[in-house]
Protein backbone atom coordinates (compact mmCIF):
# COMPACT_ATOMS: atom_id res chain seq x y z
CA UNK A 1 0.00 0.00 0.00
CA UNK A 2 1.55 3.29 -0.92
CA UNK A 3 0.37 6.59 0.44
CA UNK A 4 -0.21 9.42 -2.01
CA UNK A 5 -0.07 13.12 -1.25
CA UNK A 6 -3.82 13.43 -0.72
CA UNK A 7 -3.80 10.57 1.78
CA UNK A 8 -0.84 12.12 3.61
CA UNK A 9 -2.73 15.42 3.83
CA UNK A 10 -5.81 13.63 5.15
CA UNK A 11 -3.85 11.62 7.75
CA UNK A 12 -2.06 14.76 8.97
CA UNK A 13 -5.40 16.49 9.39
CA UNK A 14 -6.92 13.49 11.20
CA UNK A 15 -3.90 13.54 13.53
CA UNK A 16 -4.36 17.30 13.99
CA UNK A 17 -0.79 18.06 12.94
CA UNK A 18 -0.22 20.97 10.57
CA UNK A 19 2.01 19.92 7.65
CA UNK A 20 3.13 22.43 5.04
CA UNK A 21 2.03 21.61 1.49
CA UNK A 22 5.72 21.45 0.41
CA UNK A 23 6.46 18.78 3.02
CA UNK A 24 3.66 16.42 1.97
CA UNK A 25 5.53 14.51 -0.78
CA UNK A 26 8.38 13.57 1.58
CA UNK A 27 5.90 12.63 4.30
CA UNK A 28 3.93 10.44 1.91
CA UNK A 29 7.11 8.66 0.88
CA UNK A 30 8.20 8.07 4.48
CA UNK A 31 4.84 6.73 5.55
CA UNK A 32 4.75 4.46 2.50
CA UNK A 33 8.15 3.04 3.43
CA UNK A 34 6.98 2.18 6.93
CA UNK A 35 3.76 0.63 5.63
CA UNK A 36 5.73 -1.50 3.17
CA UNK A 37 7.69 -2.84 6.13
CA UNK A 38 4.38 -3.74 7.81
CA UNK A 39 3.14 -5.60 4.73
CA UNK A 40 5.15 -8.62 5.93
CA UNK A 41 2.29 -9.28 8.32
CA UNK A 42 0.23 -10.44 5.34
CA UNK A 43 2.42 -13.56 5.12
CA UNK A 44 1.08 -14.84 8.45
CA UNK A 45 -1.86 -17.21 8.55
CA UNK A 46 -4.12 -15.72 11.20
CA UNK A 47 -7.19 -17.83 10.48
CA UNK A 48 -9.20 -18.40 13.63
CA UNK A 49 -6.91 -16.25 15.82
CA UNK A 50 -8.55 -13.69 18.09
CA UNK A 51 -6.89 -10.25 18.16
CA UNK A 52 -5.10 -9.82 21.47
CA UNK A 53 -6.69 -7.28 23.78
CA UNK A 54 -4.64 -7.76 26.94
CA UNK A 55 -1.39 -9.56 27.43
CA UNK A 56 -2.03 -10.94 30.91
CA UNK A 57 -5.09 -13.10 31.40
CA UNK A 58 -6.61 -11.18 34.26
CA UNK A 59 -10.00 -9.76 35.01
CA UNK A 60 -10.05 -6.02 35.38
CA UNK A 61 -10.68 -5.01 38.95
CA UNK A 62 -13.88 -3.22 39.85
CA UNK A 63 -14.35 -0.50 42.39
CA UNK A 64 -17.31 1.13 44.03
CA UNK A 65 -18.76 3.91 41.86
CA UNK A 66 -18.30 6.68 44.38
CA UNK A 67 -16.58 10.05 44.45
CA UNK A 68 -13.08 9.61 45.90
CA UNK A 69 -11.52 13.01 45.27
CA UNK A 70 -12.25 16.48 43.98
CA UNK A 71 -12.11 20.09 45.15
CA UNK A 72 -8.83 20.72 43.37
CA UNK A 73 -9.75 23.14 40.60
CA UNK A 74 -6.64 25.25 41.16
CA UNK A 75 -4.31 22.29 40.86
CA UNK A 76 -6.04 21.05 37.72
CA UNK A 77 -5.75 24.46 36.07
CA UNK A 78 -2.23 25.13 37.34
CA UNK A 79 -0.53 24.00 34.12
CA UNK A 80 -3.03 25.40 31.62
CA UNK A 81 -1.62 27.76 28.93
CA UNK A 82 -4.78 29.85 29.33
CA UNK A 83 -7.17 29.53 32.28
CA UNK A 84 -9.84 32.08 33.12
CA UNK A 85 -12.43 32.23 35.88
CA UNK A 86 -11.88 28.61 36.84
CA UNK A 87 -12.06 27.23 33.30
CA UNK A 88 -9.68 26.20 30.51
CA UNK A 89 -9.87 28.88 27.83
CA UNK A 90 -9.74 28.14 24.08
CA UNK A 91 -10.45 30.12 20.90
CA UNK A 92 -14.13 30.69 20.19
CA UNK A 93 -15.79 27.51 18.88
CA UNK A 94 -19.33 28.78 18.27
CA UNK A 95 -20.43 31.89 16.43
Amino acid at each position, binding site marked *: *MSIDIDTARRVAHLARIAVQEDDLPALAQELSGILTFMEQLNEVDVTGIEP*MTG*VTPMRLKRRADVVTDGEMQDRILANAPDAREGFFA*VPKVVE
Partner: protein
Amino acid sequence: MSDLTRLTIAEARDALRKGETTSVALTEAYLSAIDGAGALNAFVHKTPEIAMDQARAADARIASGEAPALCGMPLGIKDLFCTRGVASQAASKILEGFRPEYESTVTRNLWDAGAVMLGKLNMDEFAMGSSNETSTYGNAVNPWKVDDRQLTPGGSSGGSASAVAADLCMAATGTDTGGSIRQPAAFTGIVGIKPTYGRCSRWGIVAFASSLDQAGPMTRTVRDAAIMLGAMSGHDPKDSTSADIPVPDFESMLTGDIRGKTVGIPKEYRMDGMPAEIEKLWADGSAMLKDAGAEIVEISLPHTKYALPAYYVIAPAEASSNLARYDGVRYGHRAKLGQGDGIVQMYEKTRAEGFGKEVQRRVMIGTYVLSAGFYDAYYNRARKVRALIKRDFDEVFAAGVDAILTPATPSAAFGLGEMADADPVAMYLNDVFTVTVNLAGLPGISVPAGLDQQGLPLGLQLIGQPWGEGDLLNTAHVLERAAGFVSKPEKWW
Protein backbone atom coordinates in the same frame (compact mmCIF):
# COMPACT_ATOMS: atom_id res chain seq x y z
CA MET B 1 35.37 6.18 52.31
CA SER B 2 36.98 6.67 48.96
CA ASP B 3 35.05 6.99 45.76
CA LEU B 4 31.52 6.91 47.08
CA THR B 5 30.13 7.04 43.56
CA ARG B 6 31.56 3.60 42.76
CA LEU B 7 29.48 1.76 45.38
CA THR B 8 26.65 -0.51 44.36
CA ILE B 9 23.30 -0.25 46.14
CA ALA B 10 24.08 -3.44 48.07
CA GLU B 11 27.50 -2.13 49.16
CA ALA B 12 26.15 1.30 50.08
CA ARG B 13 23.31 -0.25 52.06
CA ASP B 14 25.79 -2.20 54.16
CA ALA B 15 28.07 0.83 54.58
CA LEU B 16 25.14 3.02 55.63
CA ARG B 17 23.91 0.49 58.15
CA LYS B 18 27.38 0.17 59.66
CA GLY B 19 27.64 3.95 59.87
CA GLU B 20 30.67 4.06 57.54
CA THR B 21 29.07 6.74 55.41
CA THR B 22 25.86 8.75 55.21
CA SER B 23 23.25 9.38 52.57
CA VAL B 24 24.19 13.05 52.74
CA ALA B 25 27.80 12.19 51.85
CA LEU B 26 26.68 9.90 49.01
CA THR B 27 24.27 12.51 47.70
CA GLU B 28 26.87 15.29 47.78
CA ALA B 29 29.34 13.07 45.92
CA TYR B 30 26.79 12.38 43.19
CA LEU B 31 25.63 15.99 42.91
CA SER B 32 29.22 17.04 42.31
CA ALA B 33 29.72 14.22 39.76
CA ILE B 34 26.60 15.46 37.93
CA ASP B 35 27.88 19.04 37.92
CA GLY B 36 31.08 17.81 36.27
CA ALA B 37 29.31 15.79 33.59
CA GLY B 38 27.46 18.37 31.52
CA ALA B 39 29.09 16.93 28.38
CA LEU B 40 27.05 13.74 28.75
CA ASN B 41 23.76 15.70 28.82
CA ALA B 42 22.26 12.90 30.94
CA PHE B 43 20.65 14.97 33.71
CA VAL B 44 18.29 17.53 32.22
CA HIS B 45 16.62 18.84 35.39
CA LYS B 46 18.66 18.73 38.59
CA THR B 47 16.95 18.67 41.97
CA PRO B 48 19.74 19.22 44.53
CA GLU B 49 17.48 20.77 47.21
CA ILE B 50 15.04 17.86 47.11
CA ALA B 51 17.99 15.45 47.12
CA MET B 52 19.59 16.95 50.21
CA ASP B 53 16.28 17.05 52.11
CA GLN B 54 15.60 13.42 51.26
CA ALA B 55 19.18 12.43 52.15
CA ARG B 56 18.91 14.02 55.61
CA ALA B 57 15.59 12.28 56.20
CA ALA B 58 17.10 8.98 55.04
CA ASP B 59 20.03 9.33 57.45
CA ALA B 60 17.60 9.88 60.33
CA ARG B 61 15.63 6.80 59.27
CA ILE B 62 18.76 4.66 58.98
CA ALA B 63 19.88 5.83 62.43
CA SER B 64 16.55 4.67 63.83
CA GLY B 65 17.39 1.18 62.59
CA GLU B 66 14.22 0.69 60.54
CA ALA B 67 15.31 1.43 56.99
CA PRO B 68 14.51 -0.52 53.79
CA ALA B 69 17.36 -1.52 51.48
CA LEU B 70 16.90 1.43 49.17
CA CYS B 71 16.93 4.03 51.96
CA GLY B 72 19.39 6.82 51.28
CA MET B 73 20.26 5.73 47.72
CA PRO B 74 20.67 8.61 45.23
CA LEU B 75 18.75 7.83 42.04
CA GLY B 76 18.11 9.43 38.67
CA ILE B 77 14.56 9.47 37.30
CA LYS B 78 13.69 9.24 33.62
CA ASP B 79 11.88 12.38 32.46
CA LEU B 80 8.86 10.22 31.55
CA PHE B 81 7.90 9.86 35.23
CA CYS B 82 5.70 12.61 36.66
CA THR B 83 7.35 14.00 39.77
CA ARG B 84 5.36 16.50 41.78
CA GLY B 85 6.49 20.09 41.36
CA VAL B 86 9.48 19.05 39.21
CA ALA B 87 9.59 19.45 35.42
CA SER B 88 8.37 16.25 33.73
CA GLN B 89 8.43 16.72 29.98
CA ALA B 90 8.94 13.30 28.41
CA ALA B 91 11.77 15.13 26.59
CA SER B 92 9.14 16.90 24.46
CA LYS B 93 8.74 20.55 23.62
CA ILE B 94 4.99 20.11 23.90
CA LEU B 95 5.30 19.61 27.67
CA GLU B 96 7.60 22.60 28.18
CA GLY B 97 6.94 24.14 31.57
CA PHE B 98 4.77 21.26 32.78
CA ARG B 99 5.14 20.65 36.51
CA PRO B 100 2.85 17.83 37.61
CA GLU B 101 0.60 18.32 40.62
CA TYR B 102 1.00 14.62 41.43
CA GLU B 103 3.65 11.92 41.79
CA SER B 104 3.84 8.70 39.74
CA THR B 105 3.23 5.55 41.77
CA VAL B 106 6.64 4.09 40.97
CA THR B 107 8.53 7.19 42.14
CA ARG B 108 6.19 7.48 45.14
CA ASN B 109 7.15 3.88 46.05
CA LEU B 110 10.84 4.77 45.71
CA TRP B 111 10.57 7.86 47.95
CA ASP B 112 8.56 5.86 50.48
CA ALA B 113 11.46 3.40 50.55
CA GLY B 114 13.78 6.31 51.39
CA ALA B 115 15.43 6.82 48.00
CA VAL B 116 16.87 10.21 47.03
CA MET B 117 16.02 12.04 43.77
CA LEU B 118 19.05 13.65 42.11
CA GLY B 119 17.07 14.89 39.10
CA LYS B 120 15.42 13.99 35.82
CA LEU B 121 17.14 12.13 33.01
CA ASN B 122 17.29 12.63 29.28
CA MET B 123 15.43 10.27 26.93
CA ASP B 124 13.97 10.06 23.44
CA GLU B 125 10.87 12.23 23.02
CA PHE B 126 7.88 10.33 24.45
CA ALA B 127 10.20 7.29 24.63
CA MET B 128 10.12 6.99 20.83
CA GLY B 129 13.61 6.23 19.66
CA SER B 130 16.59 3.94 20.06
CA SER B 131 19.43 6.46 20.23
CA ASN B 132 18.29 9.38 22.43
CA GLU B 133 18.50 11.62 19.37
CA THR B 134 14.83 12.67 19.34
CA SER B 135 15.00 14.56 22.67
CA THR B 136 14.07 18.23 22.93
CA TYR B 137 17.05 18.54 25.30
CA GLY B 138 19.51 17.35 22.64
CA ASN B 139 21.39 14.05 22.54
CA ALA B 140 22.46 12.20 25.66
CA VAL B 141 26.00 10.90 25.17
CA ASN B 142 27.45 7.48 25.98
CA PRO B 143 30.35 7.67 28.47
CA TRP B 144 31.99 4.86 26.47
CA LYS B 145 34.24 6.09 23.68
CA VAL B 146 36.77 4.44 21.38
CA ASP B 147 37.80 7.31 19.10
CA ASP B 148 36.81 10.92 18.46
CA ARG B 149 33.20 10.04 17.80
CA GLN B 150 30.50 10.58 20.39
CA LEU B 151 28.43 7.43 20.73
CA THR B 152 24.76 6.97 21.49
CA PRO B 153 23.87 5.57 24.90
CA GLY B 154 20.90 3.93 23.19
CA GLY B 155 17.28 4.78 23.76
CA SER B 156 14.83 5.58 24.79
CA SER B 157 16.22 5.48 28.35
CA GLY B 158 19.54 6.91 27.12
CA GLY B 159 20.05 9.46 29.89
CA SER B 160 19.37 6.78 32.50
CA ALA B 161 21.94 4.44 30.93
CA SER B 162 24.56 7.15 30.49
CA ALA B 163 24.14 8.38 34.09
CA VAL B 164 24.40 4.92 35.67
CA ALA B 165 27.39 3.91 33.52
CA ALA B 166 29.19 7.20 34.27
CA ASP B 167 28.55 6.98 38.04
CA LEU B 168 26.30 10.06 38.09
CA CYS B 169 23.69 8.17 40.12
CA MET B 170 23.62 4.85 41.90
CA ALA B 171 20.79 3.57 39.73
CA ALA B 172 18.01 4.99 37.59
CA THR B 173 14.46 4.33 36.54
CA GLY B 174 13.79 3.44 32.94
CA THR B 175 10.77 2.45 30.91
CA ASP B 176 10.60 -0.15 28.18
CA THR B 177 7.97 -0.33 25.43
CA GLY B 178 10.03 -2.18 22.81
CA GLY B 179 13.49 -2.43 24.35
CA SER B 180 14.02 1.02 25.86
CA ILE B 181 15.58 -0.31 29.09
CA ARG B 182 17.46 -3.32 27.72
CA GLN B 183 19.05 -1.81 24.59
CA PRO B 184 20.58 1.24 26.37
CA ALA B 185 21.70 -1.00 29.25
CA ALA B 186 23.53 -3.19 26.71
CA PHE B 187 25.09 -0.15 24.98
CA THR B 188 26.54 1.16 28.26
CA GLY B 189 27.60 -2.00 30.09
CA ILE B 190 24.94 -1.93 32.82
CA VAL B 191 22.01 -4.11 33.91
CA GLY B 192 18.42 -3.32 32.93
CA ILE B 193 15.27 -5.32 33.57
CA LYS B 194 11.82 -4.90 32.10
CA PRO B 195 9.49 -6.75 34.45
CA THR B 196 6.32 -8.65 33.56
CA TYR B 197 3.56 -6.37 32.22
CA GLY B 198 1.57 -5.35 35.30
CA ARG B 199 4.38 -5.71 37.84
CA CYS B 200 4.96 -1.95 38.12
CA SER B 201 2.14 0.57 38.11
CA ARG B 202 1.98 2.77 35.01
CA TRP B 203 0.09 5.50 36.86
CA GLY B 204 1.80 8.87 36.49
CA ILE B 205 4.19 7.67 33.78
CA VAL B 206 3.60 9.55 30.53
CA ALA B 207 1.92 6.94 28.31
CA PHE B 208 3.40 5.85 24.96
CA ALA B 209 1.79 2.45 24.18
CA SER B 210 -0.24 1.39 27.18
CA SER B 211 -0.40 -2.33 26.42
CA LEU B 212 3.40 -2.51 26.13
CA ASP B 213 4.86 0.10 28.52
CA GLN B 214 6.57 -1.09 31.72
CA ALA B 215 8.92 0.65 34.12
CA GLY B 216 12.03 -1.03 35.47
CA PRO B 217 15.37 -0.38 37.15
CA MET B 218 18.73 0.30 35.43
CA THR B 219 21.60 -0.57 37.73
CA ARG B 220 25.27 -1.57 37.92
CA THR B 221 24.60 -5.13 39.11
CA VAL B 222 21.89 -7.77 39.02
CA ARG B 223 21.65 -7.66 42.82
CA ASP B 224 20.95 -3.93 42.67
CA ALA B 225 18.26 -4.57 40.04
CA ALA B 226 16.63 -7.10 42.38
CA ILE B 227 16.64 -4.62 45.27
CA MET B 228 15.31 -1.70 43.25
CA LEU B 229 12.69 -3.68 41.33
CA GLY B 230 11.27 -4.85 44.66
CA ALA B 231 10.84 -1.25 45.75
CA MET B 232 9.26 -0.14 42.45
CA SER B 233 6.75 -3.00 42.18
CA GLY B 234 3.36 -3.66 43.68
CA HIS B 235 -0.34 -3.41 43.08
CA ASP B 236 -1.80 0.04 42.53
CA PRO B 237 -5.55 0.62 42.48
CA LYS B 238 -4.91 3.62 40.19
CA ASP B 239 -3.65 1.36 37.36
CA SER B 240 -6.29 -1.20 36.42
CA THR B 241 -3.64 -3.31 34.64
CA SER B 242 -1.34 -3.49 37.65
CA ALA B 243 -1.31 -7.01 39.08
CA ASP B 244 -2.70 -7.67 42.52
CA ILE B 245 -0.20 -10.39 43.39
CA PRO B 246 2.50 -10.46 46.07
CA VAL B 247 5.96 -9.07 45.29
CA PRO B 248 8.56 -11.60 46.42
CA ASP B 249 11.88 -10.64 48.00
CA PHE B 250 13.81 -10.76 44.73
CA GLU B 251 17.21 -10.34 46.36
CA SER B 252 16.75 -13.41 48.54
CA MET B 253 16.13 -15.42 45.36
CA LEU B 254 19.69 -14.79 44.10
CA THR B 255 21.00 -18.16 45.21
CA GLY B 256 23.50 -18.54 42.37
CA ASP B 257 22.19 -22.05 41.80
CA ILE B 258 20.62 -22.80 38.40
CA ARG B 259 21.35 -26.55 38.34
CA GLY B 260 18.53 -28.41 36.63
CA LYS B 261 17.12 -25.31 34.95
CA THR B 262 16.43 -25.42 31.22
CA VAL B 263 17.60 -22.52 29.08
CA GLY B 264 16.27 -22.22 25.53
CA ILE B 265 18.24 -20.84 22.58
CA PRO B 266 15.75 -19.65 19.95
CA LYS B 267 16.98 -20.49 16.46
CA GLU B 268 14.99 -17.66 14.87
CA TYR B 269 17.17 -15.09 16.68
CA ARG B 270 20.16 -16.15 14.57
CA MET B 271 19.64 -13.38 12.02
CA ASP B 272 21.27 -13.17 8.61
CA GLY B 273 24.31 -10.95 8.72
CA MET B 274 24.63 -11.11 12.49
CA PRO B 275 28.12 -9.87 13.44
CA ALA B 276 30.44 -12.75 14.34
CA GLU B 277 31.25 -11.22 17.72
CA ILE B 278 27.58 -11.09 18.71
CA GLU B 279 27.25 -14.72 17.69
CA LYS B 280 30.33 -15.61 19.76
CA LEU B 281 29.07 -13.69 22.79
CA TRP B 282 25.82 -15.59 22.58
CA ALA B 283 27.60 -18.97 22.35
CA ASP B 284 29.86 -18.00 25.27
CA GLY B 285 26.86 -17.05 27.40
CA SER B 286 25.21 -20.33 26.61
CA ALA B 287 28.40 -22.21 27.63
CA MET B 288 28.53 -20.27 30.90
CA LEU B 289 24.99 -21.26 31.83
CA LYS B 290 25.74 -24.85 30.87
CA ASP B 291 28.85 -24.87 33.07
CA ALA B 292 26.67 -23.64 35.92
CA GLY B 293 24.49 -26.72 35.56
CA ALA B 294 21.68 -25.56 33.29
CA GLU B 295 20.48 -27.70 30.42
CA ILE B 296 20.71 -25.86 27.10
CA VAL B 297 18.12 -26.69 24.45
CA GLU B 298 17.44 -25.28 21.01
CA ILE B 299 13.90 -23.91 20.77
CA SER B 300 11.75 -22.42 18.05
CA LEU B 301 9.72 -19.20 18.26
CA PRO B 302 8.38 -19.31 14.70
CA HIS B 303 6.69 -15.88 14.58
CA THR B 304 9.77 -13.93 15.72
CA LYS B 305 10.29 -12.32 12.32
CA TYR B 306 6.86 -10.69 12.47
CA ALA B 307 7.34 -9.11 15.90
CA LEU B 308 8.91 -5.91 14.63
CA PRO B 309 6.26 -5.11 11.99
CA ALA B 310 3.48 -6.03 14.46
CA TYR B 311 5.05 -3.77 17.06
CA TYR B 312 5.32 -0.88 14.61
CA VAL B 313 1.58 -1.11 13.98
CA ILE B 314 0.44 -1.60 17.57
CA ALA B 315 2.75 0.88 19.32
CA PRO B 316 2.02 3.84 16.98
CA ALA B 317 -1.71 3.02 17.07
CA GLU B 318 -1.75 3.24 20.85
CA ALA B 319 0.53 6.29 20.75
CA SER B 320 -1.75 8.18 18.37
CA SER B 321 -4.54 7.70 20.87
CA ASN B 322 -2.48 8.46 23.99
CA LEU B 323 -0.90 11.56 22.49
CA ALA B 324 -4.26 13.02 21.47
CA ARG B 325 -4.30 14.65 24.91
CA TYR B 326 -1.52 17.09 23.93
CA ASP B 327 -3.73 19.72 22.39
CA GLY B 328 -2.56 22.96 23.95
CA VAL B 329 -5.53 23.19 26.31
CA ARG B 330 -4.70 21.63 29.66
CA TYR B 331 -0.91 21.73 29.91
CA GLY B 332 2.29 22.47 28.09
CA HIS B 333 2.85 24.36 24.88
CA ARG B 334 0.18 26.27 22.94
CA ALA B 335 1.04 27.78 19.55
CA LYS B 336 0.60 31.51 18.97
CA LEU B 337 -2.51 31.89 16.87
CA GLY B 338 -3.08 34.08 13.85
CA GLN B 339 -6.04 36.36 13.21
CA GLY B 340 -9.14 34.24 12.68
CA ASP B 341 -7.57 30.96 13.77
CA GLY B 342 -10.10 28.64 15.40
CA ILE B 343 -9.70 25.69 17.67
CA VAL B 344 -8.69 23.26 14.90
CA GLN B 345 -5.84 25.58 13.84
CA MET B 346 -4.85 25.80 17.49
CA TYR B 347 -4.61 22.00 17.75
CA GLU B 348 -2.79 21.59 14.45
CA LYS B 349 -0.26 24.38 15.00
CA THR B 350 0.36 23.40 18.62
CA ARG B 351 1.03 19.77 17.74
CA ALA B 352 3.18 20.67 14.69
CA GLU B 353 5.34 22.94 16.85
CA GLY B 354 5.37 20.77 19.95
CA PHE B 355 6.02 17.29 18.58
CA GLY B 356 9.34 16.36 17.01
CA LYS B 357 9.64 14.60 13.65
CA GLU B 358 9.72 11.00 14.92
CA VAL B 359 6.74 11.54 17.21
CA GLN B 360 4.77 13.16 14.39
CA ARG B 361 5.65 10.25 12.12
CA ARG B 362 4.44 7.67 14.63
CA VAL B 363 1.25 9.55 15.50
CA MET B 364 0.41 9.74 11.79
CA ILE B 365 1.19 6.05 11.19
CA GLY B 366 -0.99 5.20 14.17
CA THR B 367 -3.76 7.42 12.88
CA TYR B 368 -3.57 5.76 9.48
CA VAL B 369 -3.65 2.15 10.72
CA LEU B 370 -6.64 2.94 12.93
CA SER B 371 -8.56 4.83 10.26
CA ALA B 372 -11.71 3.51 8.63
CA GLY B 373 -10.92 0.94 5.97
CA PHE B 374 -7.47 0.06 7.31
CA TYR B 375 -8.26 -0.96 10.88
CA ASP B 376 -8.73 -4.63 9.98
CA ALA B 377 -5.91 -4.81 7.45
CA TYR B 378 -3.28 -3.40 9.79
CA TYR B 379 -4.30 -3.01 13.42
CA ASN B 380 -6.43 -6.12 13.86
CA ARG B 381 -4.01 -8.23 11.86
CA ALA B 382 -1.11 -7.00 14.02
CA ARG B 383 -3.05 -7.89 17.18
CA LYS B 384 -3.65 -11.39 15.82
CA VAL B 385 0.04 -11.80 15.03
CA ARG B 386 0.75 -10.58 18.56
CA ALA B 387 -1.42 -13.39 19.92
CA LEU B 388 0.65 -15.86 17.86
CA ILE B 389 3.91 -14.41 19.16
CA LYS B 390 2.69 -14.85 22.73
CA ARG B 391 1.55 -18.39 21.91
CA ASP B 392 5.09 -19.24 20.70
CA PHE B 393 6.42 -18.33 24.15
CA ASP B 394 3.57 -20.08 26.00
CA GLU B 395 4.34 -23.31 24.17
CA VAL B 396 8.06 -23.14 24.90
CA PHE B 397 7.47 -22.48 28.59
CA ALA B 398 4.87 -25.26 28.75
CA ALA B 399 7.48 -27.63 27.31
CA GLY B 400 9.68 -27.00 30.35
CA VAL B 401 11.91 -24.08 29.36
CA ASP B 402 12.69 -21.82 32.35
CA ALA B 403 14.53 -19.01 30.58
CA ILE B 404 15.54 -17.98 27.07
CA LEU B 405 18.96 -16.59 26.15
CA THR B 406 19.40 -14.17 23.23
CA PRO B 407 21.67 -11.27 22.28
CA ALA B 408 20.36 -7.96 23.64
CA THR B 409 21.15 -5.89 20.54
CA PRO B 410 22.29 -6.54 16.97
CA SER B 411 25.41 -4.35 17.45
CA ALA B 412 27.39 -2.31 19.97
CA ALA B 413 26.66 1.41 20.41
CA PHE B 414 26.85 3.40 17.18
CA GLY B 415 27.90 6.99 16.63
CA LEU B 416 25.48 9.85 17.26
CA GLY B 417 24.27 11.16 13.91
CA GLU B 418 25.32 8.04 12.00
CA MET B 419 21.72 6.98 11.43
CA ALA B 420 20.53 10.48 10.50
CA ASP B 421 20.11 9.72 6.80
CA ALA B 422 18.98 6.14 7.27
CA ASP B 423 15.46 4.95 6.70
CA PRO B 424 13.34 5.10 9.91
CA VAL B 425 12.95 1.32 9.61
CA ALA B 426 16.75 0.86 9.93
CA MET B 427 16.59 2.48 13.38
CA TYR B 428 13.64 0.28 14.33
CA LEU B 429 15.86 -2.81 13.77
CA ASN B 430 17.63 -1.99 17.05
CA ASP B 431 14.64 -3.51 18.84
CA VAL B 432 14.71 -6.79 16.92
CA PHE B 433 15.70 -8.97 19.91
CA THR B 434 13.79 -7.09 22.61
CA VAL B 435 10.40 -6.27 21.11
CA THR B 436 8.98 -9.80 21.28
CA VAL B 437 9.21 -9.63 25.07
CA ASN B 438 6.95 -6.56 25.25
CA LEU B 439 4.45 -8.05 22.82
CA ALA B 440 4.22 -11.17 25.02
CA GLY B 441 4.25 -9.19 28.30
CA LEU B 442 7.23 -11.17 29.63
CA PRO B 443 10.09 -10.12 31.89
CA GLY B 444 13.44 -9.59 30.13
CA ILE B 445 16.83 -8.53 31.45
CA SER B 446 19.98 -7.28 29.74
CA VAL B 447 23.26 -8.31 31.38
CA PRO B 448 26.66 -6.91 30.33
CA ALA B 449 28.60 -9.89 29.01
CA GLY B 450 31.68 -8.66 27.19
CA LEU B 451 33.40 -6.08 25.00
CA ASP B 452 33.52 -6.03 21.22
CA GLN B 453 36.77 -5.70 19.25
CA GLN B 454 36.74 -1.93 19.59
CA GLY B 455 36.26 -2.20 23.35
CA LEU B 456 32.56 -1.33 23.56
CA PRO B 457 30.17 -3.22 25.86
CA LEU B 458 27.81 -5.90 24.59
CA GLY B 459 24.87 -7.39 26.45
CA LEU B 460 23.00 -10.65 26.53
CA GLN B 461 19.28 -10.85 27.16
CA LEU B 462 17.51 -13.41 29.32
CA ILE B 463 13.74 -13.79 28.99
CA GLY B 464 11.72 -15.32 31.82
CA GLN B 465 8.28 -16.70 32.51
CA PRO B 466 5.46 -14.31 33.47
CA TRP B 467 5.87 -13.20 37.11
CA GLY B 468 9.13 -15.16 37.27
CA GLU B 469 11.41 -12.14 37.82
CA GLY B 470 13.01 -13.80 40.86
CA ASP B 471 14.11 -16.85 38.89
CA LEU B 472 15.11 -14.67 35.95
CA LEU B 473 17.26 -12.43 38.15
CA ASN B 474 18.91 -15.51 39.64
CA THR B 475 19.84 -16.83 36.19
CA ALA B 476 21.07 -13.33 35.25
CA HIS B 477 23.12 -13.26 38.45
CA VAL B 478 24.82 -16.53 37.44
CA LEU B 479 25.52 -15.16 33.95
CA GLU B 480 26.86 -11.91 35.39
CA ARG B 481 29.27 -13.74 37.70
CA ALA B 482 30.48 -16.07 34.97
CA ALA B 483 30.95 -13.25 32.44
CA GLY B 484 32.82 -11.22 35.06
CA PHE B 485 32.19 -7.92 33.28
CA VAL B 486 33.99 -5.24 35.31
CA SER B 487 35.03 -2.71 32.66
CA LYS B 488 34.13 0.93 33.17
CA PRO B 489 34.32 3.77 30.67
CA GLU B 490 37.42 5.93 31.01
CA LYS B 491 36.47 9.42 32.18
CA TRP B 492 36.78 11.99 29.36
CA TRP B 493 33.89 14.30 30.25
